[in-house]
């Protein structure tokens, strides 16, 4: 770990900074395990209905714009990189670099949400939102089954989007905290934990993108 640990604030329950850092990382990893399981239930539902209604899922996925989805994938992967650089800068105690990288990451996250908004509003316009007004016309496809695709699409990307929003809020809090404690050595633990979280959010999208946008192949 960093040689600067000695300057960090150590909670009363810990013996030293190393134990503190170890505990926080372990806790964050464990939290991410719970997140995997949280999404796991939805992935399971996806697999079940995908196998049950293959035709409808392929037909329905043509309604999604894979280019926008691809753009979002690029944006998120970029944000993962900027986040990693931000964490590195924090460990090295470079305040300006941290602020810069966090800002960039935040912008990427915002960009992701804007693209998501464009996609969602297109779906609403075409009555592809689950509920009584759902409309889907495609020869040989049961609209009910296609609706299941959109149920899962909105449930899973919606939950993922909520995670992106939480990440953005966390970044704002981080920046405020950095500003308040600007005279001190950077407390890199929260930034590192946020980084872990952000990589997880990115990873979930890496799974969601092919499942929804590239499901059919041709």
């Amino acid at each position, binding site marked *: 770990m960093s040689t600067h640990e000695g300057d960090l604030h150590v909670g009363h329950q810990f013996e030293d900074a190393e134990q503190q850092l170890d505990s926080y990382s372990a806790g964050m990893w464990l*939290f991410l395990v719970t997140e995997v*399981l949280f999404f796991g239930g939805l992935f399971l539902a996806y697999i079940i209905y995908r196998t049950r209604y293959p035709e409808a899922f392929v037909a329905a996925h043509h309604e999604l714009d894979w280019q926008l989805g691809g753009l979002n994938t690029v944006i998120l992967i970029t944000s993962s990189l900027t986040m990693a650089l931000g964490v590195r800068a924090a460990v090295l105690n470079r305040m300006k670099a941290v602020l810069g990288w966090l800002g960039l990451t935040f912008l990427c996250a915002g960009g992701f949400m804007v693209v998501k908004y464009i996609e969602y509003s297109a779906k609403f316009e075409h009555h592809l939102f689950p509920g009584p007004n759902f409309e889907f016309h495609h020869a040989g496809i049961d609209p009910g089954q296609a609706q299941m695709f959109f*149920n899962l699409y909105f449930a899973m990307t919606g939950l993922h989007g909520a995670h992106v929003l939480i990440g953005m809020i966390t970044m704002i809090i981080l920046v405020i905290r950095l500003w308040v404690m600007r005279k001190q050595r950077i407390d890199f633990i929260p930034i590192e934990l946020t980084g872990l979280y952000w990589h997880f959010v990115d990873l979930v999208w890496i799974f969601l993108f092919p499942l929804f946008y590239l499901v059919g192949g041709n």
Partner: protein
Amino acid sequence: MSAAGVATKQPEAVNYLNVDNSIKSWLLTEDHKRIGILYLVTIALMFFVGGIFAMLIRLELLTPAGDVVMSDTYNKMFTMHGVIMIFFFLIPSIPAVLGNFCLPIMIGARDVAFPRLNLASWYIFTLGAMLGVTSLVLGGVDTGWTFYTPYSSSFSHTPVIIAVSGAFVAGFASIFTGLNFIVTIHKMRAPGMTWFRLPLFVWGQYATSLIMVLGTPVIAITLLLVAVERGLRIGVFDPALGGDPVLFQHLFWFYSHPAVYIMILPGMGVMSELIATFSRKRIFGYEFVAYSSLAIAVLSFVVWGHHMFVSGQSMYLSMVFSVLTTLVAIPSAVKTFNWVVTMHKGHVKLDSPMLYALSFIGLFTIGGLTGLFLASMAVDIHLHDTYFVVAHFHYVMVGGAIVAFLGALHYWWPKMTGRMYPEPWAKLSALILFIGFNLTFFPQFILGYLGMPRRYHSYPDEWQTLNVLSSAGASILASGFILVAVYLLWSLRYGAKAPANPWDATGLEWKTPSPPPPTNFTQRPIITEEAYNYPIVLAKNGEPDEGAKQEEAEKHEHA
């Protein structure tokens, strides 16, 4: 609870109770001991509410006709009884109250790894409990605690979304507690506290926490989907909306069967503490008992389908689940035998915590063995959803989990409050509870095989006698619980002052004053011996036996 007020009456050493008395200091506390007390107050209230519903249910079932309340009211009563007792009492009972209070002390830590997260978990839990109570105030939910779809998502006219949100929110409290314990046990042990020197209660908590962390997110997302299906008509489970109701059952039981072990594993940990202390002997087969907890935690995740033998799932799937269920029973059997044999050549004292421990062994043995009936697929076809199931899980949940909780509460009460409770009353109430419990639930086994379905508000006349017996037992049981509450509250003010180690037990929690100081220890403990290192007698012929080799000579004099 007025525990804080009591401690200030006399001049005392600074302890976690008298260090600061303001309400604010309680509501913002990050001390694991105070958070444990906060949890105790909350779940005691929830237990009271859930218990009232239990009494009303037994009152209704006194007569075959549904004459005390309307059927809708009855359906709401058993639902609220189940929801409150399971999500807001049993799941947090031992981990969040006694685990929170004792676990850091038992491993020689000043606090859990994440004290603020710990406090947050209590607030989240309380919010969940308040949502549960809100659904009650709004008229109550009538789906059964299992929230089976499509009834819950499309047909019920009750505030299902609020109740489901309550369980959903409380789930996060459970995740946070589990996460906190796992990290604490991994990272916060005092020097010399190796894994195999940990008290078995800590092993039990560790296994429990694993289930909390791995299982709870799945129920969370499942309940969220029920709420979404109900609120937005986004169908995942309702066939009318293109969904599959049996998928709900799979997801629900994937968590809710392990959740049974969230309730019982900590109780098993408590048993090991009580039996060792009151037999003055190290637990027989420590490693077996420790590993069996982990085995239960792992196996608990692959048996959920035994709740669905009659649901229409594939016959072969049922067989796999049935044989795995047989396997998960073995670690529990191993534990039971190890507890019993621990008493061999011990110095058995029948203080009230030990009475609870012995009644746990009895009731849990019956509860566990009756699980064998239900794991046997053919017999389950007949017994599924009858009173046999009700009796079985009450033997495990009340006879196991709640009896263990009461045993633990009595055992650690002097440590938590600094006061002794009146022992004769405690013995009497343990006896009353044992008798009342058996009278309440044993007749239900018979009713189950006779075919009485559960969740029935009225029933055929010929089953009245057995139901009357059960209701009579319930009133005995209730008076036992009331008695416990009365003398425990009484002891807060009038109980004798507790010494640091009233039971002459080993374990770090008994090496610190009662009540403990805010940071648990004045000096960081260093551990040099095994858990339960009670003195033993060497052979008269002078040849030390295996287990006695490491014992020091000074300890011989005890015999």
